[in-house]
């Protein structure tokens, strides 16, 4: 059992504690609470230097100090507080930073509402457990043999075939039936590579449909997308050593992952709504009657300042867009504003929960929208690296890691 230390406030009174425990249990983890005596609390708060009014937050601090001092032994850390609580949000983020500075434990933070269900936590918990339990596998930097990766995402399904650390076949398509989409793209990738399914020595699956695909293809590796994508991203960008931040603006949720030598140590995943995801850009493209692949080039020519847009919510975002078009704004400016708005939301919602490490590697299907990458660069003050085949990170990670199971 992987021991995940829980530092939290409000979980029991929000009816989410059992959901947290369920999620941890289903991936082979167990939530534990570092032992703290009454005397430890005041001393810990003093040492930490932030004195919140709420006693439970003081207790969180004391528990973090126990972990930092190595008095209490855990494998990973889960920090969670109520959504919309300002005091807790400050403590949550500063404790995350403190844990990262004082320990090598992987951390994930989360702010919950009463409606949070274990399924929402599953990928995060699985990633925490994977980082701890598959250390050696995650250290792998070269692909060997003939393997394939399948990435079953919410918007698109990707397949990629690798041989001796080289990509020899790849294909993608919009997702529909999980198995059918994957079969189609895998066959295309294999054809390109000049091999048959039976020739493959191992398959790795990731993404939302990973379990179904894992069973169907008898995959050697079935793993969540946080660790798999990280490996794929650093392999593609040739940044296997050192630090980096991986940014993946997805169709359904966004991921920001900080890595050290290709292994994640902190990540956030989510988004308040579709307003800050690739889905919003798709909606924008539809409204402009262009293909989403053309949106980036169009946006590059425009200036977002000419068409103010706030896509905190995709519905309001589209209203802004309609208003801008009604006012006769140029399509270029509207496209740029949509990209800028998504970049801004990602910055405000995801990137505040992690400490950005240079370089920033932007990946996933949306990294092909050049206008979005440009806006991410302008919001962050540094252009992200977009590696070749950046939409295939999950599939590359799957092919790379599954080769670790070969004899």
């Amino acid at each position, binding site marked *: 059992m992987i021991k995940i230390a829980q530092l939290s*406030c*409000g979980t029991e*009174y929000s009816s989410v*504690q059992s959901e947290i425990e369920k999620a941890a249990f289903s991936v082979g983890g167990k939530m534990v609470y570092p032992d703290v005596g009454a005397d430890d609390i005041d001393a810990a708060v003093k040492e930490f230097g932030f004195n919140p009014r*709420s006693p439970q937050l003081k207790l969180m601090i004391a528990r973090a100090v126990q972990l930092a001092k190595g008095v209490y032994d855990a494998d990973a850390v889960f920090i969670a507080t109520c959504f919309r609580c300002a*005091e807790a949000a400050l403590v949550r983020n500063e404790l995350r930073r403190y844990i990262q500075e004082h320990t090598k434990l992987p951390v994930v933070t989360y702010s919950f509402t009463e409606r949070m269900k274990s399924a929402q936590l599953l990928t995060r918990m699985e990633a925490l457990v994977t980082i701890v339990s598959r250390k050696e596998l995650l250290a792998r930097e070269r692909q060997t043999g003939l393997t394939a990766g399948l990435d079953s995402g919410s918007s698109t399904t990707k397949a990629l075939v690798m041989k001796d650390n080289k990509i020899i076949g790849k294909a993608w398509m919009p997702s529909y039936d999980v198995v059918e989409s994957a079969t189609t793209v895998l066959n295309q990738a294999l054809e390109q590579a000049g091999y048959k399914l039976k020739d493959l020595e191992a398959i790795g699956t990731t993404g939302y449909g990973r379990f179904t695909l894992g069973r169907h293809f008898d995959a050697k590796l079935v793993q969540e997308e946080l660790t798999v994508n990280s490996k794929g991203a650093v392999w593609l960008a040739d940044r296997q050593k050192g630090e980096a931040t991986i940014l993946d603006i997805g169709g359904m949720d966004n991921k920001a992952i900080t890595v050290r030598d290709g292994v994640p140590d902190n990540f956030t995943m989510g988004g308040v709504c579709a307003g800050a995801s690739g889905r919003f850009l798709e909606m924008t493209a539809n409204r402009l009657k262009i293909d989403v692949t053309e949106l980036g080039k169009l946006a590059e020519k425009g200036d977002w300042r000419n068409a103010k847009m706030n896509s905190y919510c995709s519905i309001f975002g589209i209203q802004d867009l309609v208003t801008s078009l009604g006012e006769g704004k140029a399509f270029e400016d509207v496209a740029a504003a949509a990209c800028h708005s998504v970049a801004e939301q990602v910055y405000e919602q995801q990137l505040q929960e992690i400490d950005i490490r240079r370089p920033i590697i932007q990946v996933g299907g949306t990294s092909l929208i050049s206008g979005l990458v440009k806006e991410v660069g302008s919001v962050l003050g540094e252009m992200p690296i977009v590696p070749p085949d950046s939409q295939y990170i999950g599939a590359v990670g799957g092919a790379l890691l599954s080769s670790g199971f070969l004899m």
Partner: protein
Amino acid sequence: MKKIFIDPPNSMILFDIVERLGHEPLSTMAALQERVDNLEIDMPPMNVTLDDVISGLKYAGIEVPSGIRGRLATWGPHIDEADAAIVMAEAPYSFGCVGCERSNEMVKYLLRRRGIPVLWVEYPGDKEAAMRMLEKTKEFLGGLE
């Protein structure tokens, strides 16, 4: 015998004193026992459910964090039913269910708003302060009859 809401609602000292003086303390423990003993609910550890948190909207709006609404839903009915209350201010201990300072402030406000007699005592730092606290409590509870 009167029903006395105690704050902190999980305080052993207030619970014990109220009982010694012949009244019924209304505490978190009682509120939670109803939930804990309900075998039809499986939301460990406390069986505070989504419905509870939603019913907390009676006391605080949707923009208020879920943990506050869940707490208020747990204690609110006791505040509504109390004949009087004893509040210990500046208690250096208040963990667990009383871990959220916003909820704790709201409880005090709800007590004031109900207009029931409330005794405000200070956390006693020494024997003399404890004597004053006990005397005040005795007088307060005696006056309720």
